């Protein structure tokens, strides 16, 4: 567990994740107050990465639940292993066990498959549970999650209430695809990760792409930062900056010029409209 905000910072930095004060405080509070941490922000600023780094920093397992439309309890919580149950019934059929015995048998722990949520609650030592892109799930699933998040327990009709053996660190991420209910928000510590400042982004690039030289790194980060000030359909985020930096290193580029940028700008910008807009002004956007 984290003892102080500084410790959060140090340990995450050791895991190659640079974190600012604001985020570190939120992570620290979430861990210490045992509240879920709801992380919002544009795509690609490192929300999921933060959860992964936190798991490594806490030296524990990361259990990931990827949300999508139509995700339901059986996929998230647990499922009866139907095939195995059938096998058991058939096997019992050959012996002379009674139906009562069989019935008692097939609804036991042996016959269910724990899904991420249950796994996280039943883990021996506290794990990090990452509920990724929770905004993609349905509203019904969200209210189902509430029970798990508020008391760290879940009711399963056949088994009764399952209490967490150890309280997991829960991290929810969202791209703001839809709004959450107030009930969910109330239970969470909230963190908004925005695009990083020049200095921080530079540090991240230098850390993650060791091959890039200092001058090039500064220029490419300055260029990306200027892009973000423009009104674009989709601004480039850190993951795109890193991809771009890697590409430039791969191409053996020493310094930025208009031609190279135009040839590789599709890594940063994902809409043709944006590319056109930038192409018109490329000369002015490039740092000297």
């Amino acid at each position, binding site marked *: 567990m984290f003892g102080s905000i500084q410790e959060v910072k140090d340990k995450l930095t050791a895991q190659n994740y640079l974190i600012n004060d*604001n985020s570190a405080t939120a992570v620290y509070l979430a861990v210490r107050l045992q509240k879920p941490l709801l992380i919002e922000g544009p795509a690609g600023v490192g929300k999921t990465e933060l959860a992964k780094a936190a798991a490594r920093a806490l030296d524990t397992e990361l259990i990931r639940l990827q949300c999508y439309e139509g995700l339901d309890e059986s996929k998230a919580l647990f499922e009866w292993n139907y095939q195995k149950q059938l096998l058991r019934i058939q096997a019992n059929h050959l012996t002379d066990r009674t139906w009562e015995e069989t019935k008692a048998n097939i609804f036991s722990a042996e016959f269910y498959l724990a899904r991420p949520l249950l796994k996280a609650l039943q883990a021996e030592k506290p794990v990090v549970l990452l509920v990724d892109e929770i905004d993609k799930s349905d509203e019904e699933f969200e209210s189902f999650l509430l029970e798990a998040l508020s008391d760290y327990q879940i009711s399963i009709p056949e088994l009764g209430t399952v209490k967490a053996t150890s309280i997991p660190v829960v991290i929810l991420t969202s791209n703001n695809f839809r709004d959450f209910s107030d009930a969910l928000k109330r239970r969470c510590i909230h963190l908004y990760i925005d695009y990083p400042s020049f200095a921080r982004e530079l540090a991240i690039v230098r850390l993650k792409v060791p091959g890039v030289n200092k001058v090039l790194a500064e220029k490419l980060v300055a260029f990306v930062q200027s892009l973000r000030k423009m009104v674009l359909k989709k601004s480039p985020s850190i993951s795109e900056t890193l991809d771009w930096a890697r590409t430039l290193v791969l191409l053996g580029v020493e310094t930025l010029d208009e031609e190279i940028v135009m040839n590789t700008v599709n890594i940063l910008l994902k809409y043709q409209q944006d590319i056109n807009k930038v192409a018109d002004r490329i000369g*002015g956007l490039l740092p000297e």
Partner: protein
Amino acid sequence: MDEKILEFAVLLRKAGVKVSHSEIAESLGALSLVGLERENFYNAMAATIVKDQSDLETFDKLFYYYFDPEFFGHRAEALKRWPNLYLTGSKDRCSGTEQTPGTGQGRATGFGQGEGLATTAADSFIQVIKTGDYGEMAEMVKRGVASLGQIGEEDLRDMKKAVRQVKVFLEWNMGIYRIEQEAGVVDESIWLTWQERLTEMERLLYLELEKTIINELGSEALETIIIRENLNELDFYRLSAPQVAEMKKKISRLAHKLATRLSFRHKRAKHGTIDLSKTIRKSMATGGIPIKPVFHDRYPTRPEIVVLCDLSGSVRMFSEFMLQLVYSIQNRFIHVRSFVFVDTPDEITEYMHNREIEDGIRDVYNKARFSKTAFSDYGRMFIDFCEKYLDALNKKTTLLVIGDARNNYQKEHAEYLQKMGREVKRVIWLNPESPDMWDREDSIMSVYGRFCHQVYECRNLEQLERAARQII
């Protein structure tokens, strides 16, 4: 301390931020963990209380005013008890040190001394924007606010006026005008930085002015100001410049919400009319006996919309918001056609289609011909519309009229609205004035209202959201 935080939460609620008891309790728990050092204090409060990114601005502002030693100045012992809450200056959001080429030569004689002789106020304004020194920006704003002299209640009542006065003193608009002239010459990246600084400067000005007012007039003023922060319930025409920007963000969120909510709601409901062919096909499995009926999938109906926006003075702001809303959820409609008018309608669909909303609106002002006399004339407009564009309407369309129905005592010609109404499915009128202003002076809302299916009062975001739900 607990008391202070509770009071703070009450103020936040007044500003329209939802704060529950459990969140307050949590923030107190968090504070006991991280201590009272200002930075940590702020981070902890923000993480536990603000759950919606769009509320953060309000939170920041209130935090800045409320946990300011000057505000508690008359309660000196409060300060003694919480010495850690010292003010370290607001967060430096500008990358301040960056040097811009072309400055530092000639007139860079330093700021603040030469006002009057060597450099005019506009010069120093441009200078500050170009160098972007945060301290100098704050200094300049402070001087501007100080120029107002004694702050009185009328400044609180009409802050826009006070802001105008400060801007005149600083030759603000003159500065902006000259900076914009340079826009074509300098590099794009520099221009973007300047723009950012201009916005920051505007924000600082409001911050400084409000803070001065609060310190002068006490906590009632704080309350008044903070209530104005509640964008959901604030009248559209009262918005300050930074609030307009914030409002635009809110509207695009609202658009997003409307668009996604719809799909959630319509997906589930699967009953109603029976799909006969599928039912029979399915009944084959049970020997031709239809045991389970199959229902038609329900597809959300996508209405056609014709928007008719008044672009004259007072309603303009609201019309722009409405256009933004309609066009952000364009894909929810089969077809949107939009017209603007002051005294004659002109179609602007082409300008808005698949464009940035800002570009579209700029084109509307530059190119569309919607005003002959610059005075609203609804009657004239309805006649012209019937002449030129009546074929835009059909039985599937919803006609959305946005305006205050202030006709400058011209002829009403309501029969033309009636005629239009007969062509369409629904006529909805959104009026950005409060109902007790209707039918006063030159407003003839009820004359036109008779031929509308619905008339909504639509003064603020909350009402806009309600109306939008009705329309879709």
